[in-house]
């Protein structure tokens, strides 16, 4: 096995295309999972079984079935129902939805970790329920869960190659394509491996900066 720099430079244009797709999936998938997870966590506190039971069942189902199965399902079954999205949009949504069932548990723990005295103080001051959530409970809960959310960002990054299965060419997809066309596997796979390390390092720096910003 020998290292061929010309294979690296040959791969680089494809690398940038793949990097852009991977970053898009990661950024949008994170946003969706952070937002949906919070929505699920809040809805699970609605004091009605008509809300919590179906939502609990659906999120349990999504959490306990493989992401790959969900990707295939959304990509091949939804169009049969007349819902057609691009492969990339389907991948982003599937990953965001899948991870929202993890983040909802993170938010739940964060919300439950806010001391009951905070609720009591809000009641004693007559704060409306909505304001209690937005000004008192959520700021404290979210600050607590940023490190845990950061872990899921890293985990999500490592799951992004799965969208290859539904024809999206992200980093791994581009590397595989190039390798098969040129019979040079070492260089493209090494390049994207280094890229994954750098992206996860940058993502954790970003989450740590967010953590510092939310500190009080």
């Amino acid at each position, binding site marked *: 096995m020998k290292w061929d720099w010309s294979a690296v430079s040959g791969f680089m244009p494809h690398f940038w295309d793949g990097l852009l797709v991977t970053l898009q999936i990661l950024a949008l998938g994170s946003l969706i999972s952070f937002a949906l997870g919070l929505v699920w966590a809040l809805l699970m506190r609605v004091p009605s079984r008509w809300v919590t039971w179906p939502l609990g069942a659906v999120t349990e189902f999504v959490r306990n079935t493989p992401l790959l199965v969900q990707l295939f399902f959304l990509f091949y079954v939804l169009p049969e129902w007349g819902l057609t999205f691009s492969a990339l949009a389907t991948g982003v949504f599937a990953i965001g939805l899948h991870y929202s069932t993890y983040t909802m548990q993170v938010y739940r723990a964060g919300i439950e970790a806010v001391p009951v*005295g*905070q609720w*009591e103080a809000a009641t*004693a*001051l*007559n704060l409306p329920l909505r304001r209690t959530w937005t*000004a008192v409970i959520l700021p*404290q809960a979210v*600050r607590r869960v940023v490190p845990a959310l950061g872990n899921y960002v890293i985990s999500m990054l490592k799951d992004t190659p799965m969208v290859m299965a539904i024809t999206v060419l992200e980093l791994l997809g581009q590397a595989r394509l190039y390798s098969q066309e040129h019979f040079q596997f070492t260089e493209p796979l090494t390049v994207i491996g280094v890229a994954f390390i750098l992206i996860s390092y940058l993502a954790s720096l970003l989450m740590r900066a967010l953590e510092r910003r939310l500190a*009080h």
Partner: protein
Amino acid sequence: MPTDTLPNPGKNPARSTGELIRLEQVTKRFGDHTVLDHLDFSVDAGKHVTLIGPSGSGKTTILRLLMTLLKPDEGTITVDGEQLFPAPEKQVREVRKKIGMVFQQFNLFPNMTVLRNITEAPVTVLGMSKDAAEERARELLELVGLTDHLDKHPAQLSGGQQQRVAIARALAMRPQVLLLDEVTSALDPELVAGVLDVLRDIARSTDITMLCVTHEMNFARDISDQVLMFDSGRVIESGPPEKIFSSRSCCTAPSRRPTSWPG
């Protein structure tokens, strides 16, 4: 602290006199345990009433019922002529405006500065302008001796300072009644005096009604108009502090010396 500059936290033009709080036949159970058993009890406006008694005798439960943190199982609670329980949520919100509470564990909002802890409720609940609320917060912080700390967060303050902020926060809502739930129990001994001094000041300089659960017997003696001694959810003795704390009444309940009640 000069009393002539006090902002009179309790002054309110619509202040009523006479009976302000009334509990009638109030029963509260936790599971099989009956904490309050058909309790009747009332407090006149402007009075400072201290509740004493052994742990588990229901003192704190009374404060928590009045603050609507708990609901009674039976009975009625009336504040300033308006029913607090049973009552629809909208009425509860209105009546609750008349009541403020200071907690054993302070319960300041750690995500807000000292200033915003105090202005949050006046702005969002009473609809005060931010400027007016901040001006009032500054006055109250002066009252509790913490004007230098208004931009700090609670975690940067000592327990005693936090509790003084909590007192200011409660007063900012201009309550007619201030409920004090063992407000010095969580403090290091050397910080207790500062908090009690602030409360003595408020008791002396305002017409706010105080309902106080405390183990600080000297403080209770100083500020109270009336002391209620509880045991097993009933008032077993009540009267002015001189009477309750006299050696005679001490000997009528030989197993419970008022100066040595356990936490």
